[in-house]
Protein backbone atom coordinates (compact mmCIF):
# COMPACT_ATOMS: atom_id res chain seq x y z
CA UNK A 1 0.00 0.00 0.00
CA UNK A 2 1.05 3.57 -0.60
CA UNK A 3 2.47 5.47 2.32
CA UNK A 4 2.43 9.10 3.36
CA UNK A 5 5.61 11.11 3.85
CA UNK A 6 5.07 10.90 7.61
CA UNK A 7 4.85 7.09 7.33
CA UNK A 8 8.16 7.19 5.47
CA UNK A 9 9.74 9.24 8.28
CA UNK A 10 10.34 12.33 6.19
CA UNK A 11 10.84 15.38 8.40
CA UNK A 12 8.69 17.45 6.00
CA UNK A 13 4.94 17.28 5.45
CA UNK A 14 3.02 17.47 2.20
CA UNK A 15 -0.34 19.18 2.06
CA UNK A 16 -2.35 18.86 -1.15
CA UNK A 17 -5.56 20.42 -2.34
CA UNK A 18 -7.88 18.79 -4.83
CA UNK A 19 -11.21 19.76 -6.29
CA UNK A 20 -12.94 20.82 -9.45
CA UNK A 21 -11.92 23.90 -11.39
CA UNK A 22 -13.80 26.74 -9.75
CA UNK A 23 -14.04 25.02 -6.36
CA UNK A 24 -11.82 27.71 -4.82
CA UNK A 25 -9.00 25.32 -3.88
CA UNK A 26 -6.24 27.54 -5.30
CA UNK A 27 -7.45 30.49 -3.22
CA UNK A 28 -7.47 28.30 -0.13
CA UNK A 29 -3.98 26.94 -0.59
CA UNK A 30 -2.70 30.44 -1.32
CA UNK A 31 -4.16 31.67 1.96
CA UNK A 32 -2.71 28.70 3.80
CA UNK A 33 0.69 29.43 2.29
CA UNK A 34 0.56 33.09 3.33
CA UNK A 35 -0.38 32.11 6.87
CA UNK A 36 2.47 29.60 7.15
CA UNK A 37 5.01 31.96 5.59
CA UNK A 38 4.02 34.72 7.97
CA UNK A 39 4.86 32.47 10.86
CA UNK A 40 8.37 32.20 9.45
CA UNK A 41 7.99 28.56 8.45
CA UNK A 42 9.77 26.70 5.66
CA UNK A 43 7.14 26.51 2.93
CA UNK A 44 7.31 25.46 -0.69
CA UNK A 45 4.45 25.65 -3.16
CA UNK A 46 4.12 23.53 -6.30
CA UNK A 47 1.43 23.62 -8.91
CA UNK A 48 0.16 20.91 -11.22
CA UNK A 49 1.59 21.04 -14.75
CA UNK A 50 4.26 23.63 -14.00
CA UNK A 51 7.61 21.94 -14.63
CA UNK A 52 9.54 24.26 -16.92
CA UNK A 53 11.02 21.67 -19.21
CA UNK A 54 7.96 19.54 -19.70
CA UNK A 55 5.69 22.56 -20.05
CA UNK A 56 7.01 23.37 -23.53
CA UNK A 57 5.99 19.94 -24.79
CA UNK A 58 2.66 20.01 -22.99
CA UNK A 59 1.64 23.37 -24.34
CA UNK A 60 2.67 22.39 -27.86
CA UNK A 61 0.64 19.20 -27.52
CA UNK A 62 -2.36 21.09 -26.24
CA UNK A 63 -2.22 23.92 -28.75
CA UNK A 64 -1.92 21.61 -31.68
CA UNK A 65 -4.31 19.09 -30.19
CA UNK A 66 -1.71 16.37 -30.55
CA UNK A 67 -2.61 14.62 -27.33
CA UNK A 68 -4.48 11.37 -26.96
CA UNK A 69 -5.72 10.14 -23.56
CA UNK A 70 -2.54 8.06 -23.27
CA UNK A 71 -0.05 10.80 -24.15
CA UNK A 72 -2.07 13.33 -22.13
CA UNK A 73 -1.70 11.06 -19.13
CA UNK A 74 1.99 10.35 -19.71
CA UNK A 75 3.02 13.94 -20.27
CA UNK A 76 1.33 15.02 -17.06
CA UNK A 77 3.00 12.14 -15.24
CA UNK A 78 6.33 13.36 -16.65
CA UNK A 79 5.63 16.85 -15.36
CA UNK A 80 4.69 15.48 -11.96
CA UNK A 81 7.75 13.21 -11.78
CA UNK A 82 10.03 16.14 -12.60
CA UNK A 83 8.59 18.26 -9.82
CA UNK A 84 8.47 15.29 -7.47
CA UNK A 85 12.08 14.22 -7.92
CA UNK A 86 13.60 17.65 -8.29
CA UNK A 87 11.64 19.69 -5.76
CA UNK A 88 9.13 17.84 -3.60
CA UNK A 89 11.29 14.99 -2.31
CA UNK A 90 14.46 17.00 -1.59
CA UNK A 91 12.45 19.74 0.13
CA UNK A 92 10.54 17.23 2.20
CA UNK A 93 13.85 15.66 3.16
CA UNK A 94 14.98 19.11 4.24
CA UNK A 95 11.96 19.46 6.50
CA UNK A 96 9.71 21.73 4.45
CA UNK A 97 5.99 22.10 4.46
CA UNK A 98 5.23 21.41 0.83
CA UNK A 99 1.93 22.67 -0.54
CA UNK A 100 0.61 21.17 -3.76
CA UNK A 101 -2.16 22.60 -5.85
CA UNK A 102 -3.36 19.24 -7.18
CA UNK A 103 -1.60 15.93 -6.68
CA UNK A 104 -1.85 12.41 -8.16
CA UNK A 105 -5.61 12.33 -7.53
CA UNK A 106 -6.12 14.82 -10.32
CA UNK A 107 -4.56 12.29 -12.68
CA UNK A 108 -6.51 9.40 -11.15
CA UNK A 109 -9.72 11.32 -11.85
CA UNK A 110 -9.00 12.98 -15.21
CA UNK A 111 -7.15 10.20 -16.96
CA UNK A 112 -9.77 7.65 -16.02
CA UNK A 113 -12.55 9.92 -17.28
CA UNK A 114 -10.54 10.09 -20.52
CA UNK A 115 -10.63 6.30 -20.77
CA UNK A 116 -7.23 5.22 -19.45
CA UNK A 117 -7.36 2.02 -17.36
CA UNK A 118 -7.41 3.02 -13.65
CA UNK A 119 -4.83 0.36 -12.67
CA UNK A 120 -2.44 1.57 -15.35
CA UNK A 121 -2.66 5.18 -14.18
CA UNK A 122 -2.27 4.31 -10.52
CA UNK A 123 0.75 2.11 -11.12
CA UNK A 124 2.45 4.88 -13.11
CA UNK A 125 2.13 7.24 -10.16
CA UNK A 126 3.08 4.55 -7.65
CA UNK A 127 6.56 6.07 -7.26
CA UNK A 128 4.98 8.95 -5.34
CA UNK A 129 4.16 8.82 -1.66
CA UNK A 130 0.74 10.03 -0.54
CA UNK A 131 0.21 13.52 0.90
CA UNK A 132 0.03 13.79 4.65
CA UNK A 133 -3.10 15.90 4.25
CA UNK A 134 -5.36 16.06 1.22
CA UNK A 135 -8.04 18.73 1.38
CA UNK A 136 -10.85 18.09 -1.02
CA UNK A 137 -12.93 21.14 -1.79
CA UNK A 138 -16.32 19.71 -2.37
CA UNK A 139 -18.39 22.17 -4.22
CA UNK A 140 -21.76 21.89 -5.74
CA UNK A 141 -21.18 21.09 -9.41
CA UNK A 142 -23.46 23.87 -10.59
CA UNK A 143 -21.75 26.42 -8.31
CA UNK A 144 -18.29 25.51 -9.64
CA UNK A 145 -19.48 25.61 -13.21
CA UNK A 146 -21.15 28.94 -12.62
CA UNK A 147 -17.99 30.38 -11.11
CA UNK A 148 -16.00 29.40 -14.18
CA UNK A 149 -18.63 30.05 -16.79
CA UNK A 150 -19.86 33.37 -15.42
CA UNK A 151 -17.14 35.24 -17.22
CA UNK A 152 -17.97 33.34 -20.41
CA UNK A 153 -14.30 32.46 -20.74
CA UNK A 154 -12.87 30.91 -23.84
CA UNK A 155 -12.61 27.31 -22.70
CA UNK A 156 -9.56 25.49 -23.97
CA UNK A 157 -9.96 22.31 -25.94
CA UNK A 158 -8.57 19.85 -23.39
CA UNK A 159 -9.86 21.66 -20.31
CA UNK A 160 -13.34 21.47 -21.69
CA UNK A 161 -12.81 17.76 -22.36
CA UNK A 162 -13.52 18.39 -26.05
CA UNK A 163 -11.25 15.47 -26.95
CA UNK A 164 -13.85 13.16 -25.45
CA UNK A 165 -16.45 14.26 -28.01
CA UNK A 166 -19.05 14.63 -25.27
CA UNK A 167 -20.66 17.55 -27.02
CA UNK A 168 -19.81 19.93 -29.84
CA UNK A 169 -20.58 22.83 -27.51
CA UNK A 170 -17.53 23.52 -25.32
CA UNK A 171 -19.66 24.74 -22.41
CA UNK A 172 -21.85 21.68 -22.50
CA UNK A 173 -18.79 19.47 -22.88
CA UNK A 174 -17.15 21.17 -19.90
CA UNK A 175 -20.24 20.54 -17.77
CA UNK A 176 -20.36 16.84 -18.57
CA UNK A 177 -16.61 16.47 -18.18
CA UNK A 178 -16.51 18.18 -14.77
CA UNK A 179 -19.47 16.10 -13.60
CA UNK A 180 -17.59 12.90 -14.42
CA UNK A 181 -14.44 14.12 -12.70
CA UNK A 182 -16.47 14.92 -9.58
CA UNK A 183 -17.82 11.35 -9.59
CA UNK A 184 -14.26 10.02 -9.71
CA UNK A 185 -13.14 12.26 -6.84
CA UNK A 186 -16.05 11.22 -4.65
CA UNK A 187 -15.38 7.56 -5.36
CA UNK A 188 -11.79 7.81 -4.05
CA UNK A 189 -12.51 10.17 -1.15
CA UNK A 190 -12.57 7.47 1.56
CA UNK A 191 -9.76 5.39 0.13
CA UNK A 192 -7.32 8.30 0.36
CA UNK A 193 -8.67 9.94 3.52
CA UNK A 194 -9.68 13.17 1.83
CA UNK A 195 -10.36 15.94 4.31
CA UNK A 196 -13.55 17.16 2.78
CA UNK A 197 -14.19 20.89 3.01
CA UNK A 198 -17.55 22.36 2.15
CA UNK A 199 -16.54 24.68 -0.66
CA UNK A 200 -19.93 26.35 -0.76
CA UNK A 201 -19.08 28.20 2.47
CA UNK A 202 -17.46 31.65 2.55
CA UNK A 203 -13.70 31.77 1.83
CA UNK A 204 -12.91 32.69 5.45
CA UNK A 205 -15.00 29.89 6.94
CA UNK A 206 -13.18 27.33 4.76
CA UNK A 207 -9.78 28.77 5.62
CA UNK A 208 -10.66 28.53 9.30
CA UNK A 209 -11.28 24.81 8.98
CA UNK A 210 -8.04 24.29 7.03
CA UNK A 211 -5.86 26.26 9.47
CA UNK A 212 -7.45 24.63 12.50
CA UNK A 213 -6.86 21.18 11.10
CA UNK A 214 -3.22 21.90 10.32
CA UNK A 215 -2.62 23.53 13.72
CA UNK A 216 -4.05 20.52 15.51
CA UNK A 217 -2.18 17.91 13.47
CA UNK A 218 1.24 19.42 12.78
CA UNK A 219 3.79 20.72 15.26
CA UNK A 220 4.41 23.88 13.27
CA UNK A 221 7.25 25.01 15.54
CA UNK A 222 9.42 22.29 13.97
CA UNK A 223 9.23 24.02 10.61
CA UNK A 224 10.64 27.38 11.74
CA UNK A 225 13.23 29.04 9.56
CA UNK A 226 16.45 30.37 10.95
CA UNK A 227 16.42 33.80 12.61
CA UNK A 228 18.01 35.82 9.84
CA UNK A 229 15.56 34.67 7.19
CA UNK A 230 13.73 37.43 5.34
CA UNK A 231 10.05 36.78 4.89
CA UNK A 232 8.75 36.83 1.33
CA UNK A 233 6.58 39.80 0.45
CA UNK A 234 2.92 39.41 -0.31
CA UNK A 235 2.33 38.90 -3.97
CA UNK A 236 -0.82 39.73 -5.83
CA UNK A 237 -3.06 36.66 -5.73
CA UNK A 238 -2.97 34.31 -8.63
CA UNK A 239 -5.00 35.64 -11.51
CA UNK A 240 -8.04 33.68 -12.45
CA UNK A 241 -6.59 31.19 -14.85
CA UNK A 242 -9.80 30.78 -16.76
CA UNK A 243 -9.89 34.41 -17.72
CA UNK A 244 -6.41 34.36 -19.22
CA UNK A 245 -7.11 31.42 -21.46
CA UNK A 246 -6.68 31.80 -25.15
CA UNK A 247 -9.45 30.67 -27.45
CA UNK A 248 -9.16 27.44 -29.40
CA UNK A 249 -6.53 27.54 -32.09
CA UNK A 250 -8.97 25.81 -34.33
CA UNK A 251 -12.25 27.67 -34.27
CA UNK A 252 -13.98 24.91 -36.18
CA UNK A 253 -14.48 22.92 -32.99
CA UNK A 254 -16.68 25.71 -31.70
Amino acid at each position, binding site marked *: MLKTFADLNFPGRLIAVEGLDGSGKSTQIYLLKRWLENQGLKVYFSEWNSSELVKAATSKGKKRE*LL*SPTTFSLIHATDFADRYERHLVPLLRAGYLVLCDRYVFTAYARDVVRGCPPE*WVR*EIYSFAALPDFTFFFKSNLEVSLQRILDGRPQLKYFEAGMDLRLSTDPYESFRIFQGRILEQYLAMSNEFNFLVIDANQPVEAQQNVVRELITNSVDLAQFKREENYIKPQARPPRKDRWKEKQPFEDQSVL
Partner: protein
Amino acid sequence: MEREATIRRPKRVVTPRIVVPKKRPRRFYGHGIPGVELQKLAGKLIVVEGADGSGRSTQIAKLVDWLEASGHATVQVGLKRSTLVSEELEKAQQGNILSHTTLSLFYATDFADQMENIIMPALRAGFMVLADRYIYTLMARDLVRGMDETWLKNLYGIALIPDAVFYLNVAPEELIQRNFAKNNALDYWESGMDLGLAPDLFDSFLKYQGMMLEAFKRLQSTYRFTMVDGHRGVDDINAELRSQIEHVLEGSNE
Protein backbone atom coordinates in the same frame (compact mmCIF):
# COMPACT_ATOMS: atom_id res chain seq x y z
CA MET B 1 -14.80 -14.00 -58.01
CA GLU B 2 -13.17 -12.40 -60.99
CA ARG B 3 -11.18 -14.63 -63.30
CA GLU B 4 -7.53 -13.76 -63.69
CA ALA B 5 -7.01 -11.71 -66.82
CA THR B 6 -5.01 -13.51 -69.49
CA ILE B 7 -2.37 -11.39 -71.10
CA ARG B 8 -1.32 -12.45 -74.55
CA ARG B 9 2.35 -11.92 -75.06
CA PRO B 10 4.83 -13.53 -77.40
CA LYS B 11 6.81 -14.83 -74.41
CA ARG B 12 5.21 -15.50 -71.12
CA VAL B 13 6.91 -13.56 -68.31
CA VAL B 14 6.46 -15.08 -64.89
CA THR B 15 6.11 -12.50 -62.13
CA PRO B 16 6.82 -13.97 -58.72
CA ARG B 17 3.75 -14.04 -56.51
CA ILE B 18 3.78 -11.46 -53.75
CA VAL B 19 3.03 -13.01 -50.42
CA VAL B 20 -0.05 -11.48 -48.85
CA PRO B 21 0.72 -11.52 -45.12
CA LYS B 22 -1.43 -13.84 -43.04
CA LYS B 23 -3.43 -12.10 -40.36
CA ARG B 24 -2.84 -13.12 -36.79
CA PRO B 25 -4.60 -11.95 -33.65
CA ARG B 26 -2.86 -8.89 -32.27
CA ARG B 27 -2.44 -7.99 -28.62
CA PHE B 28 -0.95 -5.39 -26.33
CA TYR B 29 1.54 -6.36 -23.66
CA GLY B 30 -0.65 -4.94 -20.92
CA HIS B 31 -3.58 -2.59 -20.48
CA GLY B 32 -3.02 -1.22 -23.96
CA ILE B 33 -4.26 2.00 -25.46
CA PRO B 34 -7.93 2.87 -25.00
CA GLY B 35 -10.16 2.76 -28.06
CA VAL B 36 -7.95 0.75 -30.43
CA GLU B 37 -9.54 -1.80 -32.74
CA LEU B 38 -6.81 -4.41 -32.78
CA GLN B 39 -8.31 -6.53 -35.53
CA LYS B 40 -7.84 -3.65 -37.94
CA LEU B 41 -4.08 -3.60 -37.53
CA ALA B 42 -3.31 -5.73 -40.57
CA GLY B 43 0.37 -4.94 -41.15
CA LYS B 44 3.36 -6.52 -39.43
CA LEU B 45 5.59 -5.01 -36.77
CA ILE B 46 9.24 -6.02 -36.89
CA VAL B 47 11.68 -4.77 -34.27
CA VAL B 48 15.47 -4.67 -34.45
CA GLU B 49 17.18 -4.10 -31.10
CA GLY B 50 20.82 -3.78 -30.18
CA ALA B 51 23.44 -1.32 -28.97
CA ASP B 52 24.90 1.48 -31.08
CA GLY B 53 27.28 -0.20 -33.48
CA SER B 54 25.46 -3.52 -33.45
CA GLY B 55 24.42 -3.02 -37.07
CA ARG B 56 20.75 -2.14 -36.53
CA SER B 57 20.44 0.53 -39.17
CA THR B 58 22.43 -1.45 -41.75
CA GLN B 59 20.17 -4.45 -41.24
CA ILE B 60 17.00 -2.36 -41.34
CA ALA B 61 18.07 -0.66 -44.59
CA LYS B 62 18.66 -4.06 -46.18
CA LEU B 63 15.34 -5.38 -44.91
CA VAL B 64 13.54 -2.36 -46.34
CA ASP B 65 15.14 -2.94 -49.77
CA TRP B 66 14.21 -6.58 -49.70
CA LEU B 67 10.64 -6.05 -48.43
CA GLU B 68 9.90 -3.32 -50.95
CA ALA B 69 11.37 -5.37 -53.80
CA SER B 70 9.09 -8.19 -52.63
CA GLY B 71 6.08 -5.88 -52.89
CA HIS B 72 5.55 -4.83 -49.30
CA ALA B 73 5.05 -1.21 -48.24
CA THR B 74 7.28 -0.22 -45.34
CA VAL B 75 7.50 2.43 -42.66
CA GLN B 76 10.47 2.98 -40.35
CA VAL B 77 10.23 4.18 -36.78
CA GLY B 78 12.75 4.75 -34.02
CA LEU B 79 13.03 6.21 -30.57
CA LYS B 80 12.94 9.93 -29.88
CA ARG B 81 11.26 10.79 -33.18
CA SER B 82 7.79 11.91 -32.03
CA THR B 83 6.31 15.26 -33.03
CA LEU B 84 5.10 15.71 -29.49
CA VAL B 85 8.22 15.59 -27.33
CA SER B 86 11.32 14.67 -29.34
CA GLU B 87 12.73 18.22 -29.27
CA GLU B 88 12.19 18.68 -25.55
CA LEU B 89 13.56 15.22 -24.88
CA GLU B 90 16.71 16.06 -26.80
CA LYS B 91 17.08 19.28 -24.83
CA ALA B 92 16.57 17.48 -21.53
CA GLN B 93 19.21 14.93 -22.43
CA GLN B 94 21.70 17.56 -23.48
CA GLY B 95 21.34 19.32 -20.16
CA ASN B 96 21.21 16.05 -18.22
CA ILE B 97 18.84 17.71 -15.78
CA LEU B 98 16.03 15.20 -15.45
CA SER B 99 15.89 12.48 -12.83
CA HIS B 100 15.30 8.87 -13.75
CA THR B 101 11.54 8.59 -13.33
CA THR B 102 11.03 11.81 -15.24
CA LEU B 103 13.27 10.84 -18.15
CA SER B 104 11.69 7.42 -18.23
CA LEU B 105 8.18 8.89 -18.45
CA PHE B 106 9.35 11.40 -21.06
CA TYR B 107 10.60 8.55 -23.23
CA ALA B 108 7.36 6.67 -22.66
CA THR B 109 5.44 9.73 -23.86
CA ASP B 110 7.57 9.85 -27.01
CA PHE B 111 6.99 6.15 -27.55
CA ALA B 112 3.23 6.38 -26.98
CA ASP B 113 2.95 9.27 -29.42
CA GLN B 114 4.71 7.28 -32.13
CA MET B 115 2.71 4.17 -31.27
CA GLU B 116 -0.54 6.05 -31.79
CA ASN B 117 0.40 8.33 -34.64
CA ILE B 118 2.87 6.34 -36.74
CA ILE B 119 2.96 2.65 -35.86
CA MET B 120 -0.75 1.96 -35.52
CA PRO B 121 -1.89 3.99 -38.54
CA ALA B 122 0.77 2.26 -40.67
CA LEU B 123 -0.32 -1.17 -39.44
CA ARG B 124 -3.93 -0.23 -40.12
CA ALA B 125 -2.90 0.58 -43.68
CA GLY B 126 -1.24 -2.83 -43.98
CA PHE B 127 2.38 -1.64 -43.93
CA MET B 128 5.42 -3.50 -42.67
CA VAL B 129 6.64 -1.39 -39.78
CA LEU B 130 10.36 -1.66 -39.06
CA ALA B 131 11.23 -0.34 -35.65
CA ASP B 132 14.80 0.67 -34.94
CA ARG B 133 14.57 -0.16 -31.20
CA TYR B 134 11.37 -0.52 -29.22
CA ILE B 135 10.31 -0.62 -25.57
CA TYR B 136 13.04 -3.14 -24.67
CA THR B 137 15.88 -0.63 -25.00
CA LEU B 138 13.90 1.85 -22.92
CA MET B 139 13.19 -0.77 -20.29
CA ALA B 140 16.76 -2.08 -20.22
CA ARG B 141 18.16 1.45 -19.76
CA ASP B 142 15.78 2.01 -16.87
CA LEU B 143 16.46 -1.37 -15.28
CA VAL B 144 20.17 -0.61 -15.32
CA ARG B 145 19.35 2.65 -13.54
CA GLY B 146 17.47 0.86 -10.80
CA MET B 147 13.88 1.41 -11.88
CA ASP B 148 11.28 -1.09 -10.78
CA GLU B 149 10.54 -3.86 -13.28
CA THR B 150 6.83 -4.14 -12.40
CA TRP B 151 6.44 -0.40 -12.81
CA LEU B 152 8.12 -0.53 -16.23
CA LYS B 153 6.01 -3.47 -17.39
CA ASN B 154 2.85 -1.60 -16.47
CA LEU B 155 4.05 1.57 -18.15
CA TYR B 156 4.87 -0.19 -21.41
CA GLY B 157 1.69 -2.25 -21.31
CA ILE B 158 0.63 0.29 -23.95
CA ALA B 159 2.94 -1.36 -26.49
CA LEU B 160 1.73 -3.71 -29.18
CA ILE B 161 3.35 -7.13 -29.19
CA PRO B 162 5.52 -7.16 -32.34
CA ASP B 163 5.48 -9.98 -34.89
CA ALA B 164 9.23 -10.40 -34.61
CA VAL B 165 11.93 -8.95 -32.36
CA PHE B 166 15.60 -9.41 -33.16
CA TYR B 167 18.35 -8.52 -30.75
CA LEU B 168 21.69 -8.03 -32.49
CA ASN B 169 24.12 -9.29 -29.92
CA VAL B 170 27.63 -7.86 -30.22
CA ALA B 171 30.27 -8.01 -27.49
CA PRO B 172 31.07 -4.62 -25.87
CA GLU B 173 34.74 -4.86 -27.01
CA GLU B 174 33.63 -5.20 -30.61
CA LEU B 175 31.06 -2.39 -30.19
CA ILE B 176 33.89 -0.09 -29.12
CA GLN B 177 35.88 -0.89 -32.26
CA ARG B 178 32.85 -0.27 -34.47
CA ASN B 179 31.94 3.01 -32.75
CA PHE B 180 35.50 4.27 -33.15
CA ALA B 181 35.64 3.18 -36.77
CA LYS B 182 32.45 5.16 -37.41
CA ASN B 183 32.67 8.28 -35.21
CA ASN B 184 36.04 8.15 -33.48
CA ALA B 185 34.05 8.66 -30.31
CA LEU B 186 31.79 6.99 -27.76
CA ASP B 187 28.40 8.48 -26.96
CA TYR B 188 27.89 9.86 -23.43
CA TRP B 189 24.57 8.07 -22.87
CA GLU B 190 25.54 4.85 -24.66
CA SER B 191 28.49 4.75 -22.28
CA GLY B 192 26.22 5.21 -19.27
CA MET B 193 28.34 8.13 -18.09
CA ASP B 194 25.40 9.43 -16.04
CA LEU B 195 25.79 6.39 -13.79
CA GLY B 196 29.31 7.19 -12.64
CA LEU B 197 30.51 3.65 -13.33
CA ALA B 198 34.04 4.70 -14.21
CA PRO B 199 35.90 7.98 -14.59
CA ASP B 200 36.59 7.53 -18.30
CA LEU B 201 34.35 6.81 -21.28
CA PHE B 202 36.19 3.67 -22.33
CA ASP B 203 35.80 1.76 -19.06
CA SER B 204 32.32 3.14 -18.51
CA PHE B 205 31.22 1.99 -21.97
CA LEU B 206 32.44 -1.55 -21.37
CA LYS B 207 30.76 -1.77 -17.97
CA TYR B 208 27.54 -0.16 -19.13
CA GLN B 209 27.13 -2.29 -22.23
CA GLY B 210 27.76 -5.38 -20.14
CA MET B 211 24.99 -4.28 -17.77
CA MET B 212 22.67 -3.55 -20.69
CA LEU B 213 23.23 -7.04 -22.07
CA GLU B 214 22.34 -8.51 -18.68
CA ALA B 215 19.18 -6.40 -18.60
CA PHE B 216 18.22 -7.56 -22.10
CA LYS B 217 18.73 -11.16 -21.09
CA ARG B 218 16.46 -10.57 -18.09
CA LEU B 219 13.80 -9.05 -20.34
CA GLN B 220 14.13 -11.89 -22.81
CA SER B 221 12.51 -14.33 -20.40
CA THR B 222 9.32 -12.25 -20.54
CA TYR B 223 9.45 -10.78 -24.02
CA ARG B 224 11.11 -13.67 -25.86
CA PHE B 225 13.04 -11.95 -28.62
CA THR B 226 15.35 -13.70 -31.01
CA MET B 227 19.01 -13.31 -30.05
CA VAL B 228 21.02 -12.88 -33.23
CA ASP B 229 24.79 -13.27 -33.29
CA GLY B 230 25.84 -9.87 -34.54
CA HIS B 231 29.50 -10.75 -35.08
CA ARG B 232 28.87 -12.43 -38.43
CA GLY B 233 28.88 -10.81 -41.86
CA VAL B 234 26.13 -8.35 -42.73
CA ASP B 235 24.62 -10.67 -45.37
CA ASP B 236 24.69 -13.74 -43.15
CA ILE B 237 22.79 -11.87 -40.48
CA ASN B 238 20.35 -10.44 -42.99
CA ALA B 239 19.65 -13.91 -44.41
CA GLU B 240 18.71 -15.09 -40.92
CA LEU B 241 16.40 -12.11 -40.37
CA ARG B 242 14.77 -12.58 -43.78
CA SER B 243 14.01 -16.21 -43.26
CA GLN B 244 12.34 -15.42 -39.93
CA ILE B 245 10.38 -12.55 -41.46
CA GLU B 246 9.24 -14.85 -44.26
CA HIS B 247 7.74 -17.09 -41.58
CA VAL B 248 6.00 -14.05 -40.13
CA LEU B 249 4.54 -13.12 -43.52
CA GLU B 250 3.34 -16.67 -44.12
CA GLY B 251 1.92 -16.83 -40.62
CA SER B 252 4.04 -19.85 -39.78
CA ASN B 253 6.11 -18.32 -37.00
CA GLU B 254 6.08 -19.79 -33.47
